[in-house]
């Protein structure tokens, strides 16, 4: 293998050096550009996909750490499985729906099952179909895994498997098509660079639907309706998870430029990376200060949420805002996420990890920020001549996309509930889903206060 490749490489060079003078020379320089551009941009996207997949352990650790030890196996298992199921379902249906040609009057697309080709045209900025799929499936899996945190501690394992199949195979790709597949949202000038709305808001609102249909965990609200803190069992894991998410986001945002070759691309990618960093940092600090101010003590879990909030907020607009605007976006997100958590407590919705405040609320914030900060012209013109990122389009998207995710998932979870395939029994919940659903403890041998 190794040898073989070395030779190929050498040959490649010879060919170039050997090739005689004339017409084809131009091709020489051109082909060099095409060849290395093709390699670089695909390598860049591969790196991006890998980083986005690194967000999976990130989510798994955050959600696991923010929940009770007695449910750790269950939540880990859900996180592992939404990735596995997501890969298969998105391969079979999702990808075709999201990036195929419009059908059903532009409601969704269809390009057949699977990926289709292996090869593409050799040029900078052109992705091989396989590479393109890998990057896209990583995003689908991200949307899916957001939900597990919101429904933690009470949703049946089997129900979650059903959910994740439906989301990655159908719901996410359809709203994805509306924008990234070139659907009507795209045509009206809706802008969502890397998915504050299409990925995070979808996940966040799907999670909200789940949390509402399920109802709160036993003990989350006292008899007189006061919210009770149900502390996470492993904050070091949760912190690790947030660090991994931060790092994974360097794939999520910069790689969404989809090419790095060419001055414009190279510089866009780097601007995006820095904006992502600044928003994350600002979000973390502000969330810390906000809780410090409200509750007199700095709360780690809120600061961690704040970092994620900043990242979600910058996702839709990171390619079109300045560094300073990125800071502002992060600052607002950091405050929003804390208020979002308190809002859910107020309306008695139990979202153990803050999936909605982070991904839902700040996802919308990211979309609106496009209209506020983004100089629309930067993003060019939409089919209907409107500028990308204009207020109407952003509001339309910020309403329709979350609504779509919330609505469909609300229906799905309600159906499961009807066949009471949704929630585990109170005994099981009290004892922990790990024993009840998996007959397996996460921390065998550790003495836990069984009284919590």
């Amino acid at each position, binding site marked *: 293998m190794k040898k073989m490749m070395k030779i190929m490489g050498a040959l490649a060079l010879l060919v170039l050096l050997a090739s005689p003078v004339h017409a084809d020379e131009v091709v020489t320089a051109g082909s060099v550009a095409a060849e290395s551009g093709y390699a670089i941009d695909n390598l860049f996207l591969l790196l991006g996909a890998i980083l986005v997949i690194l967000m999976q352990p990130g989510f798994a650790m955050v959600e696991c750490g923010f929940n009770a030890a007695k449910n750790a196996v269950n939540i880990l298992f859900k996180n592992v499985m939404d990735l596995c199921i997501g890969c298969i379902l998105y391969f079979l249906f999702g990808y075709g729906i999201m990036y195929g040609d419009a059908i059903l009057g532009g409601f969704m697309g269809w390009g057949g099952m699977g990926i289709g080709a292996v090869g593409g045209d050799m040029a900078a900025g052109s992705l091989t179909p396989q590479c393109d799929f890998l990057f896209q499936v990583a995003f689908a899996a991200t949307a899916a895994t957001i939900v597990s945190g919101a429904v933690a501690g009470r949703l049946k394992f089997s129900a979650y498997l059903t959910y994740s199949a439906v989301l990655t195979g159908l719901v996410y790709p359809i709203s994805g098509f509306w924008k990234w597949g070139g659907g009507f949202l795209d045509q009206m000038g809706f802008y969502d660079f890397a998915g504050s709305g299409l990925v995070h808001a979808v996940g966040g609102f799907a999670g909200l639907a789940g949390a509402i249909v399920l109802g709160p965990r036993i003990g989350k609200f006292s008899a007189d309706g006061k919210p009770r803190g149900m502390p996470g069992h492993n904050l070091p894991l949760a912190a690790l998870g947030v660090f991994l998410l931060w790092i994974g986001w360097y794939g999520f945002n910069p790689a969404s430029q989809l090419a790095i070759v060419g001055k414009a691309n190279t510089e866009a990618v780097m601007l995006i990376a820095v904006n992502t960093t600044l928003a994350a940092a600002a979000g973390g600090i502000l969330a810390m200060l906000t809780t410090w101010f409200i509750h007199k003590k700095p709360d780690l879990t809120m600061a961690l949420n704040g970092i994620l909030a900043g990242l979600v907020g910058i996702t839709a607009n990171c390619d079109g805002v300045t560094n300073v605007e990125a800071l502002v976006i992060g600052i607002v997100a950091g405050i929003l996420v804390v208020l979002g958590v308190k809002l859910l407590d107020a309306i008695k919705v139990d979202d153990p990890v803050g999936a909605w405040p982070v991904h839902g609320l700040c996802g919308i914030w990211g979309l609106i920020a496009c209209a506020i900060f983004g100089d629309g012209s930067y993003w060019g013109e939409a089919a209907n001549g409107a500028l990308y990122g204009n207020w109407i389009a952003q509001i339309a998207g910020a309403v329709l996309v979350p609504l779509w995710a919330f609505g469909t998932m609300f229906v799905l979870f309600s159906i499961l509930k009807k066949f009471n395939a949704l929630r585990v029994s109170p005994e099981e919940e*009290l004892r922990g889903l790990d024993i009840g659903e998996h*007959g397996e403890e996460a921390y065998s041998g550790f003495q836990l206060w*069984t*009284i919590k």
Partner: protein
Amino acid sequence: MKLIIAYIQPEKLTAVKQALYEKDVFKMSVTNALGCGQQKGYHETYRGADIEVNLLKKVRLDIAVNADFVETTIEAIISGARSGNIGDGKIFVQDLEQCIRIRTGEKGDEAIG
């Protein structure tokens, strides 16, 4: 004075505490315990292999009370802990010769409450 020791199901602790509070029993000590009794254990499988769990998680309460409080205390515990199922637990009563409050050095009855 008497020392009441009770082994109950962990998930009943809150109910038992509630019941005790209502009877003005506010002081107690709680420890984790594993119990083995009439209640048969259960079987888990790990990687396909069998695990027999016959030591079950219980919570142990130690409550020191004055003699005249014993009955009410026991009733409170029972009312909070009974589900009627095997595994509900046991209550043991022992004599308590002396009780001292470290902070004040008070002894006996006034120390206990």
